[in-house]
């Protein structure tokens, strides 16, 4: 029976909806989820930077690996706590670890977070105890889990029926990953500056600028894909669009470049971190708008690319 070709519908769709009512429900992931994604991104990227720093500077003379491990460990505690706070029945958070479901980014993401927390604790703790070998051994799983934790959140959004999130899965993931790296490098640059490691801070600032460049490129591909899918309206007009333009683009990308040119690198790094969080909040809010637009959802389900 499955072999039958789908029966053609009575006539082409003329844009009818059911009384203009939404056909989907908004996820209503609140500011806690946006903050969680940003903190997790910074922590995951910091763990990647710790790994890179260890291969480059085995003596850790700049203290970069040590500080990055501490930041990543702190993030691996704070981020899940924020995430649990968003659950509507938070006392049952541990049910996330009840099963493993490969089809669900929320399920395997929970396991990546758990692994990231455990490995981050091991790398940080071993270093504190003076066990450098053990710390470096734990650094490998910590960096790998960090990469997963910094990027899976876009996958979580795209693996849904939400038109805005599902329309452009690859560029959204690239945008979130680049924003995570920009935030992680900016946070480490701040720490290195406050520790007086100016040269290391400069290099981290350059890395965060490169990441902002990658984020801008991904954003352009993303809005192009969303426009072609006919779902771009929530990022064009309205409060989420304003948040996206003023928060993510002006404060998160343009302002840091200007501040750096004006010789205010610490302010630039702070702007990148705030912009990274506002980008996630704008994408979540725009997604909720998208779900409420029946022309977007019905059109997307008709035109969808496989």
């Amino acid at each position, binding site marked *: 029976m499955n072999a039958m070709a789908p029966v053609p519908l009575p006539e082409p769709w003329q844009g009818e909806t059911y009384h203009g009512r939404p056909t989907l429900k908004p996820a209503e992931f609140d500011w806690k989820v946006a903050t969680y994604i940003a903190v997790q991104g910074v922590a995951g990227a910091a763990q990647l930077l710790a790994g890179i720093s260890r291969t480059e500077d085995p003596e850790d003379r700049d203290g970069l690996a040590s500080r990055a491990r501490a930041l990543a460990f702190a993030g691996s505690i704070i981020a899940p706590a924020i995430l649990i706070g968003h659950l509507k029945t938070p006392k049952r958070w541990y049910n996330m670890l009840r099963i493993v479901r490969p089809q669900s980014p929320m399920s395997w993401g929970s396991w990546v977070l758990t692994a990231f927390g455990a490995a981050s604790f091991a790398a940080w703790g071993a270093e504190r105890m003076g066990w450098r070998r053990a710390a470096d051994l734990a650094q490998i799983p910590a960096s790998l889990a960090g990469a997963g934790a910094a990027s899976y959140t876009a996958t979580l959004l795209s693996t849904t029926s939400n038109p805005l999130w599902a329309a452009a899965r690859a560029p959204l993931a690239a945008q*979130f990953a680049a924003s995570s790296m920009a935030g992680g490098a900016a946070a480490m640059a701040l720490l290195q500056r406050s520790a007086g490691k100016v040269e290391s801070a400069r290099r981290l600032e350059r890395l965060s600028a490169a990441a902002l460049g990658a984020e801008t490129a991904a954003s352009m591909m993303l809005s192009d894909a969303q426009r072609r899918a006919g779902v771009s309206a929530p990022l064009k007009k309205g409060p989420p669009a304003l948040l996206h333009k003023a928060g993510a683009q002006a404060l998160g990308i343009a302002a840091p470049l200007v501040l750096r040119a004006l010789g205010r690198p610490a302010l630039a790094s702070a702007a990148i971190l705030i912009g990274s969080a506002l980008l996630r909040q704008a994408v979540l809010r725009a997604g909720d708008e998208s779900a409420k637009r029946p022309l977007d959802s019905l059109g997307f389900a008709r035109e969808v690319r496989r």
Partner: protein
Amino acid sequence: MDGGLINRGAQEAERTAGARIEPGRSYGFFTDTTLCIGCKACEVACKEWNGLPADGDMRLSGHSYDNTGALGAETWRHVGFVERLDDRPGEMKPFQSNWIMFSDVCKHCDPAPCLEACPTGALFRTEFDTVVVQQDICNGCAYCVPACPFGVVEVSKADGKAHKCTLCHDRMKGGMEPACAKACPTDSIQFGALEDLIPRAHQRVEHLHEMGQDRAYLYGAPGTPGATHGIKKLNAFFLLTERPEVHGLPSEPVRPAPRAQPSLLAGLGTLAGLAAAALVFGLGSRR
């Protein structure tokens, strides 16, 4: 070997729906819009059996006779009303005075996007091939909400758990057909084993075509619109005479799970590229 059925002998469902309920077989609804008279007995029966509160603030929506609005945490059957005013008069079509009623419900998709999204296993596939949220496990993560291609499942503000139609799992355990199907006075909602319902639905389409209603088609039966892009069948499927969008249904629902892989690879690839740049250009001071 009765899977815990309370009623081991004759079942009520055999008398009311002509269907014997046995674990291991697939059950569902065949909802025929050409028979619906918009009485909302299904909505009322559902609310009564499942102990669900009334909808909204008792104001009129202005959307024909639909003051229910949409499926949600506390609304598991929803009768939609579409008035085809522009068809009148003179060329009135032969069915329902151009007034199309449609009782919507959770589709119990196979595979089910909500179930595939659920990280706790609260959403599971039952012994009757239906999809149910286990209330003692759900932690209100709400990921099933955007996963659903039909906007059905919702997290209740009252208890912080996801809720939707259970296809009256408890009644089926007791050998009874679901409350909405039993209450439906015109058999617009038919309950049964899919192996019986699907051929019956195809026969109904043929019969309607013979009678002159050539727009009738099935939505959600295997190989029909609604069963598309990785969704093999909707266990609750429909007979429609209008395009699906007229009822707020997507013409080609998509299973979201296959989107994960390209997304994950793009994210990890971006991080790998930036990490490689960091390795090449260095992060520490030069000595």
